[in-house]
């Protein structure tokens, strides 16, 4: 049913793309995404895929070509990082507004300036309001599984929105890991056939795509419909994750829990940091300090109500952010979302925010230990000493 391989994260993504065999891939190289494009180009050169690969002259053109190809009617994928995602930004909104199920793999890297090629989540967080579904992956295995599921989620008739799968640059993309690659046939059966809604290439039924909405047009209604589809995506993501579990033995939901059942404080985090955090929690639990981890997988749509049901029972919730929102000392984007949702809770937990790892600054076990000790003390004391904290910052 699967083969176990020792490969880097980018190779795992390229494997997923080979199995999906999208009709069009349009991409431009950027560190640390580059190895995905290189590997996939080899697959094309060796005839292992039927993909028409468009090696564009920029990420803006990559996303523009993806929009054209998806509007023409078929499966379309791309991959990028950092400045590349930022350059796509304008067309991200066109892709979602035209309801095109493009799948984008974003290898998280920070944004300039200062120029820095290492990991943080500034890139994807900057695109958080672009109406793209955003899925995060702790490791290469999850990233591989998430890319396969992304196709089903994006193309679901009730959704028809583009999906961005995120994984941490270098930490995951360039590290060799033990990965189970599923067999092609069951993967292709899971992904299934795609039938586009209004393809340009249906000569018997010509369509106009991307029409001009006049002053008294339908823009507001179109955007409300898009928002409704994002709401539906919440359920489709869970259905697809459940079906994936039935077929391949590993189910996926909106998040993954560790030690929440008896915890007095809960950490919320995204991507690879969850591995370090889990290790520290493991050690502290043996000392009787019951802390839990909620590893968020789905950031868009935002599972606000679902999270409140779980998070409101903890005396303390600490949110780890690998990006800043530059609100002036009010914390990172993930913290802001969690805080806003908890306003509706019957019982509001105390909140703390830990900003870490900007520009690839290492998140060590000792840093996480320091943060989790503070969180534990807050749970004991019933008050948080410092709301927004910076881990690993040289003062």
């Amino acid at each position: 049913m699967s083969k176990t391989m020792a490969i880097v994260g980018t190779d795992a993504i390229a494997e997923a793309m080979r199995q999906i065999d999208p009709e069009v891939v349009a991409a431009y190289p950027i560190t640390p995404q580059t190895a995905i494009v290189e590997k996939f180009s080899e697959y094309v050169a060796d005839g292992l895929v039927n993909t028409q690969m468009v090696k564009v002259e920029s990420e803006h053109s990559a996303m523009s070509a993806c929009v054209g190809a998806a509007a023409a009617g078929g499966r379309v994928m791309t991959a990028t990082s950092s400045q590349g995602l930022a350059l796509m930004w304008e067309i991200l909104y066109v892709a979602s507004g035209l309801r095109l199920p493009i799948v984008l793999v974003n290898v998280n890297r920070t944004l300039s300036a200062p120029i820095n090629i290492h990991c943080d989540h500034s890139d994807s967080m900057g695109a958080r309001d672009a109406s793209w579904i955003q899925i995060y992956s702790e490791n290469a295995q999850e990233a591989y599984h998430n890319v396969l599921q992304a196709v089903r989620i994006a193309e679901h008739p009730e959704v028809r929105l583009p999906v961005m799968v995120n994984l941490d640059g270098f930490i995951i993309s360039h590290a060799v890991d033990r990965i189970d690659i599923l067999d092609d046939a069951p993967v292709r059966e899971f992904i299934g056939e795609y039938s586009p809604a209004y393809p340009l290439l249906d000569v018997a039924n010509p369509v106009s795509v991307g029409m001009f909405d006049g002053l008294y047009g339908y823009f507001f209604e179109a955007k409300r419909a898009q928002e409704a589809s994002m709401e539906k995506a919440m359920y489709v993501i869970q259905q697809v994750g459940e079906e994936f579990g039935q077929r391949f033995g590993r189910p996926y939901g909106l998040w993954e829990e560790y030690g929440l059942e008896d915890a007095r404080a809960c950490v919320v985090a995204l991507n690879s940091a969850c591995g370090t955090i889990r290790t520290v929690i493991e050690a502290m639990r043996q000392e009787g300090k019951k802390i839990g981890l909620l590893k968020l997988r789905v950031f868009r749509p935002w599972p606000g109500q679902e999270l409140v049901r779980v998070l409101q029972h903890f005396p303390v919730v600490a949110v780890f952010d690998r990006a800043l929102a530059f609100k002036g000392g009010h914390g990172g984007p993930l913290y802001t979302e969690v805080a806003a949702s908890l306003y509706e809770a019957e019982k509001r937990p105390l909140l703390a925010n830990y900003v870490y790892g900007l520009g690839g600054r290492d998140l060590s076990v000792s840093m996480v230990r320091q943060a989790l000790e503070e969180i534990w003390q807050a749970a004991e004391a019933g008050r948080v000493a410092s709301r927004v904290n910076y881990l690993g910052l040289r003062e």
Partner: protein
Amino acid sequence: MVALAELTGKKEYFAPGHRLCAGCGAPIAVRQVMLGLPEGVTPVVCCPTGCLEVSSTIYPYSAWRCSYVHNAFENGGATLSGVEAMYLAKKRAGQLQDDIRFVAFGGDGATYDIGLQSLSGALERGHHLIYVCYDNEAYMNTGIQRSGATPWGAWTTTSPVGSEALGKEQWRKDLTAICAEHNIPYVAQASISHWRDTVTKAQKAWEYSKEGPVFLNILAPCHRGWRFPMEKTIEVARQAVKTRFWPLYEVEKGEWRLTVKVTKPEPVRTWLETQGRFSHLLKPGNEAAVEHFQAEVDRQWAKLMHRCGE
């Protein structure tokens, strides 16, 4: 050369009822290009943002009798690249039997300026498509701002005439030549005033688009921006050719060829006189400006003649 009789029964892909201005040059350029489409071929059209785009597809009405896609302003080349790539993928997989060909219509702002990278990329990659620039020499959709296609001395709202300025201070870039240097199968410069020349070039363009990228630059005057009576559009375009301001030529497989010879050119002043945007140049005391304009027209013509081996 194409004959009028061949064209009278042809299907028109651009329907009446669009909201472009009366006297606009753009729809004339579109119709001349679409008249060159071979029988049995289905077109797919892409428009980057511009007058033609906003005026032909006001939801829920479309003036296009074929599939059409708009993405944004600066990405006509890349968008149509994607459409063509999907066509090739479907064709190779045996999922499509139809002969579909692809054309983009962009204004000079979308083509010379903001979309130049996207266009250049599409030409370099060798996609099977036609990119048509309907050149009206300024950003007309946003209200007559200067572009890389605006001639020296022209008034626009961002190259105003004042005590220190005689309109635009730079000459236009030669986009047709820039596209020709991409070594693509076919490039041509045309004018809506010379319909037979333009439709003949369009016929070649549709044929050559089976081999690779094609670029057509078609002069399409805008009476609002150029300041002339709306019924004079064709006359103003024709005078641009007769004065050698807008030479009609083609570059077929690397061979440069003049398609309309202008053996007895009229002074460029006679073209400037047709338009209010140049009226300041014609005032007493600005004779040197008109001479400067004429000298640049002569210089560029000589350069083109050299390329055409004339």
